[in-house]
């Protein structure tokens, strides 16, 4: 219990402060947990190791959680891992249940965070040994499994898959990076684009462009009629929230938390895959998932518990292999080296006190996040009351800040916002789907690296089936997911036929999933 000596008032204060700043960073579209940690890293030198870690872990947990706010209220994922939160969160906000949606998210986040912290504490070294059983082959299959959600995500399976493949194509633009072991050659572009697109489009500007800027374009087209978004989004008294939402969602909550922890644990597979995968599995396994994508709490639970479970998960390889599980933990390595502490397989046995201090900070940060968010929600949700003519310019401005800052100051990232804003607008107009496209974009480049590298190593396609028993399990899951999507496809086609026969032909069945409720 020696480590208790390190936990003083300053420690508690720093955890709280870190979490608060993290939430703010996460809540600003384009600002991420990674950026929050990177920006505050120099501070930790003055603070010392334990206090520094308190601050950084607070930032990490806060940053990941904060992403839910713009996802639910503005339909802009604050961080890449909150992408699936927009699928159900924004429809709920449109129905006037923004506050309720946020409360569900906060509780799911807390559970996800705590479950992963517990798993980290009890099983870190054990799981690290398990995680190194995942080679390129198994990682490719995990990505494929996450991609399989594309098929069931849209009203028309064909359109969904097509949109997803376009997303994958877009992600391949740029060089086949040598930092992934590629040959560094560029492809899918003309020579004159090379100065700008050498490294391809970066994820975050694409994400906030396609969600944020295109939403504004669609509104501008309609003349930005209503003065406040709040007339549509009634705040409601408590938004009808009660814990009963979680009834029957316990399996979902547990499953998603473990999926999040697990995906976070795999180096390189990273954040956004976690929430997508949890969402996929809820969609496949839930008794009734027909409302998912239209404002179902179960979608929020899956997404948010998984993305907060990332935190503990990503710390597992960091602390027991010396390898970061995601981009934020990659920056955390810097904090350790600044203090002259190595992370690696011997970190935990050699730095018992630091290890306990980190666990305390992590658990504490989750509770602080919960308290801060749960009671602030009522006020945060009022964002939607801000008149659009004030809100929209500010959204554009903050998107610019985020896009410019994400890669530490690259102007092309700002133009990416506009390119994908316009693209997102066109895509929705011609009836393609944004959600599968963006999931394709997020996972596409990883799919390439893992796929090509597997084949380079083994020289045969059969390796994907014969590599290991883990691969077989993953195939079974993929098959189940695809079969489910097909079954769903038939069901919805039958329903569409019925609607068609009633002479109700909404041309926006595919286009306006998120925008058709602006019925003015």
């Amino acid at each position, binding site marked *: 219990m020696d480590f208790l000596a390190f936990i003083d008032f300053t420690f508690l204060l720093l955890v709280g402060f870190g979490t608060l700043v993290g939430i703010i960073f996460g809540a600003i579209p384009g600002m991420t947990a990674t*950026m929050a940690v990177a*920006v*505050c890293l120099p501070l930790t030198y003055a603070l010392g190791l334990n206090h520094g870690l308190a601050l950084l872990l607070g930032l990490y947990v806060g940053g990941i959680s904060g992403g839910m706010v713009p996802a639910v209220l503005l339909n802009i994922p604050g961080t890449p891992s909150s992408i699936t939160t927009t699928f159900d969160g924004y429809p709920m906000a449109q129905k006037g249940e923004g506050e309720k949606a946020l409360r569900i998210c906060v509780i799911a986040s807390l559970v996800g965070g705590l479950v992963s912290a517990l798993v980290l504490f009890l099983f870190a070294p054990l799981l690290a040994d398990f995680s190194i059983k995942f080679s390129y082959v198994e990682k490719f299959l995990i990505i494929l499994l996450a991609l399989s959600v594309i098929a069931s995500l849209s009203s*028309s399976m*064909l359109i969904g*898959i*097509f949109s997803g*493949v*376009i997303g*994958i*194509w877009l992600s*391949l633009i740029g060089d*086949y990076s040598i930092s992934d072991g*590629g*040959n560094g*050659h560029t*492809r*899918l572009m003309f020579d004159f684009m090379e100065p700008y697109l050498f490294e391809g489009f970066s994820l975050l500007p694409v994400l906030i462009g396609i969600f944020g*800027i295109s939403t*504004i*374009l669609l509104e*501008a*087209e309609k*003349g*930005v*009629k209503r003065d406040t978004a709040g007339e549509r989004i009634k705040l409601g008294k408590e938004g009808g929230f009660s814990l009963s939402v979680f009834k029957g969602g316990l399996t979902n909550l547990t499953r998603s938390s473990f999926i999040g922890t697990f995906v976070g644990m795999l180096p390189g597979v990273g954040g956004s895959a976690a929430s997508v995968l949890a969402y996929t599995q809820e969609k496949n396994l839930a008794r009734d998932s027909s409302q998912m994508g239209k404002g179902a709490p179960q979608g929020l639970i899956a997404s948010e518990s998984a993305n907060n479970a990332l935190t503990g998960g990503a710390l597992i390889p960091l602390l027991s292999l010396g390898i970061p599980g995601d981009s934020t933990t990659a920056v955390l390595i810097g904090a350790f080296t600044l203090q002259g502490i190595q992370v690696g397989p011997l970190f935990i046995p050699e730095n018992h006190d630091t290890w306990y201090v980190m666990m305390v900070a992590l658990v504490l940060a989750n509770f602080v996040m919960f308290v801060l968010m749960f009671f602030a929600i009522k006020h945060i949700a009022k964002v939607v009351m801000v008149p*659009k*003519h*004030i809100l*929209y*310019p*500010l959204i*554009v*401005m*903050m998107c*610019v*800040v985020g896009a*410019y*800052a994400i890669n*530490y*100051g690259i*102007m092309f990232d*700002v*133009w990416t916002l*506009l390119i994908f*804003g*316009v693209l997102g607008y*066109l895509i929705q*107009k*011609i*009836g393609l789907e944004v959600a599968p496209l963006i999931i394709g974009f997020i996972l596409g480049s990883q799919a*390439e690296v893992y*796929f*090509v590298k597997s*084949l*380079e190593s083994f*020289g*045969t*396609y059969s390796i994907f089936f014969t590599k290991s028993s883990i691969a077989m399990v993953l195939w079974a899951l993929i098959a189940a997911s695809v079969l489910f999507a097909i079954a769903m496809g038939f069901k919805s086609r039958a329903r569409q036929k019925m609607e068609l026969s009633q002479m109700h*032909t909404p041309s926006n069945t595919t286009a306006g999933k998120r925008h058709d409720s602006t019925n003015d």
Partner: protein
Amino acid sequence: MASDLLSVSIDFETSHLFFPHIVHWLLAGLFLLILVTKVVPFMAAVKRGERTLPIIGEARDSKRFFGTLALICAYFYLMAVVGDLFPYTGYGFLFVSMVFVLLMSLMYLHDWTKKKLIIVVINAIAAPTIAWFVLAKLFTITLP
């Protein structure tokens, strides 16, 4: 035998084209399918006058739509230009954002009352300043 069929050898020098190649075939196949099952029936419906073409055939508030596009383009462009006059101070962002937020607010504002205009102006000055101060000064994040 089966393993021969599945075996593949990737030349490192051209490995950057291996996966895109597969994706291209997938895209082409899917596009054809969509052409046949969705686009052709849709165009037929357009011809019969049952449906309208997207974008071209739709009503739109052109002033605000193209105004938004033009403003955003000018905003991004001028930000870099002005920013270059004061290297790495963030003033490009600060000053151009003020103008942008003001113009965009005015464009979206339907009824210009005195009270609303005052709020718009205050917001246009205060918001970029706060963002600039907190991010560029407090957190030393590089801004244009």
